[in-house]
């Protein structure tokens, strides 16, 4: 990737305080010093286990949450302290598509009313022009204008996701954050929505941060993929490198646990033992250490528990955060060989 980045995230940190009252509440570090860039027209995939901080990063970028520390820049401009008009301009540049398609719409407003929002808020159109632009928008995402007077709950999951896309595209943003936009959809519907994304991106030159735990969807759509583990970015790189030659042990395990679809091949997935919640991460060291196969193979070196691994360039053009990235043998046949674990 070369050239100016559209979105630049540097040292992003987000702490959430546990629910409840009193000083005894501990803070959860949902996002822990994350940095990455998204270039114009590029789709970056963000993958990772549940609770790894994907949604939080998305919400920070669209400014639904305030970062605890770190910088988010859009075209070089710091997003902190944007106010008034500048803030409204930012809203036209960056949009979000939400995960839960059922709740992402107010059940008491018609599609027409919901899709008028962006035009009214930004004073882009009114009257007959508004009507025309909403119609155009709807057709663009594969729906028809008679649907304008229906309520969101009268649509199927796939149609509702198209509405979500339409709402986000109305202001012609440069960057769209899509949080799990295809999970919960049938394979065939999912394919339709993914195709729509691909088309829109080609035609509109849209940049996207595509959050998903479905690696097949991510691989189809995203030129680059970033892998999160417990709030930290552990690897980022071009999709083929990441899939065929992953460097970080967690990425390997993750790739290995995707069903390979080799009928007759049997169950060949990597099974990482233990779960995120079991491993109380050592703040100072590598979060993945307690479940890491490489760490055990290397005789549990102290470095992994004491020093935080930083993102460093890895073979294949990506970056990985592992102290022992170089000492890893190339996985055979693109399938990780890891197994075992704690527990």
């Amino acid at each position: 990737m070369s050239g100016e980045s559209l979105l630049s995230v540097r040292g992003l940190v987000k702490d959430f305080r546990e629910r409840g009252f009193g000083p005894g509440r501990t803070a959860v570090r949902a996002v822990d010093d994350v940095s990455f860039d998204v270039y114009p027209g590029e789709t970056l995939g963000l993958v990772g286990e549940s609770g790894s901080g994907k949604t939080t990063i998305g919400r920070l970028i669209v400014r639904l949450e305030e970062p605890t520390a770190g910088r988010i820049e859009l075209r070089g401009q710091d997003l902190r302290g944007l106010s008034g008009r500048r803030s409204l301009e930012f809203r036209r540049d960056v949009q979000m598509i939400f995960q839960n398609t059922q709740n992402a719409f107010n059940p008491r407003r018609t599609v027409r009313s919901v899709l008028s929002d962006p035009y009214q808020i930004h004073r882009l159109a009114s009257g007959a022009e508004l009507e025309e632009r909403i119609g155009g928008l709807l057709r663009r995402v594969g729906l028809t204008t008679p649907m304008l007077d229906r309520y969101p709950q009268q649509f199927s999951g796939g149609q509702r996701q198209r509405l979500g896309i339409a709402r986000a595209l109305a202001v012609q943003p440069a960057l769209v954050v899509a949080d799990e936009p295809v999970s919960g959809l049938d394979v065939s519907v999912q394919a339709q929505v993914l195709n729509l994304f691909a088309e829109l991106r080609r035609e509109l030159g849209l940049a996207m941060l595509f959050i998903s735990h479905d690696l097949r969807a991510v691989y189809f759509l995203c030129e680059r993929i970033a892998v999160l583990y417990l709030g930290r970015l552990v690897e980022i790189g071009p999709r083929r490198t990441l899939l065929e030659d992953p460097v970080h042990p967690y990425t390997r395990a993750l790739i290995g646990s995707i069903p390979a679809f080799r009928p007759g091949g049997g169950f060949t997935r990597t099974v990482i033992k233990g779960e995120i919640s079991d491993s109380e991460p050592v703040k100072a060291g590598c979060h993945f250490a307690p479940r890491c196969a490489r760490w055990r193979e290397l005789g549990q070196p102290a470095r992994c528990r004491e020093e935080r691994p930083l993102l460093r360039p890895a073979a294949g053009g990506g970056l990985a955060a592992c102290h022992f990235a170089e000492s890893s043998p190339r996985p055979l046949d693109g399938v990780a060989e890891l197994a075992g674990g704690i527990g």
Partner: protein
Amino acid sequence: MNDVKTAETVLRVRDLAVEFSLRGSVARAVDGVGFEVRAGEIVGMVGESGSGKSVTMLALLGLVPRPGRVVAGSVRLRDIELGALSLRELARLRGRQMALIPSDAGAALNPVTRIGSQVGEGLAAHLPELPRAERPARILDILKRVGLPRPEQQVRRYPHELSGGMQQRVAVAMGVQLGPDLLIADEPTTALDVTIQAQILQLLLDVREQSGTSILFITHDMTTVAEICDRVLVMYAGQIVESGPVVDVCTAPAHPYTRALLDAIPPLGGDPPERLTTIPGAPPDPRAWPAGCRFAERCRLREQLGNPDKCTSLAPELASDGAGRRSRCHFTGSAAEAVVR
């Protein structure tokens, strides 16, 4: 799994039909479904949302909710005809001979009962002869078997204190603790991460290995079916449209719908295609199934064959090829060749 082919039949379903009557109209959600599950076999049931997978499963368990009604068919578990049982007898059977693993264990577990007591309830209900004093050990044992870390601590916890993967393990534990002949798993991994998914699937395979339990595995994910199932049933619009050994069905689908389902899976590796293959349109309305083939509207094969009238006028039968494969298409066999990828 060669021995599976000759193993005895555990579940035999014939011509099962379930109707929902809603305000004058009747939706036949399951329409003439028939299949068998043999001992130690894992049978996958796939199909789009609304194709009738869950309703079929509920009918097997005798739990079709109102206003639904089983209107035809027979379900035999070993040599018991379930339709002839009273509600009480059926309830006794569930859990002991036939158990269910729900898709969302978090919602299915009782939020105010500790994990240990919940697992214990099943024991108390179905194994009253087991002395009370031996129950705790039994509970720990089963939780250990499903790979729940530190079971001694977990039994005292409430469901919400467990992660989604751990909750699902508890659900599996509750399903397998009495060693049922048949385990019905309705989308047991859909809500989980791939890594946790892999753990649960491994667990189901282990259960089958250790106890010879048969599993009916309901999902809409063909890739998972390809990994763990021996045979697969493809559902469309309330009917089985294709069935057969997984490898055959996945490598050479006989029915155009199966083919379309497989084609829609985004490929992994290499340069991704410009666009994914999709199935146009949507499934028909269960209140008014079309007269001919229910897939005709969306069928690529029919289009390629020049839209023969037969497809829309005559409903195809689920024809068997005599070698364990069935397909509900007038032009079975043309599917594999005619669809050019």
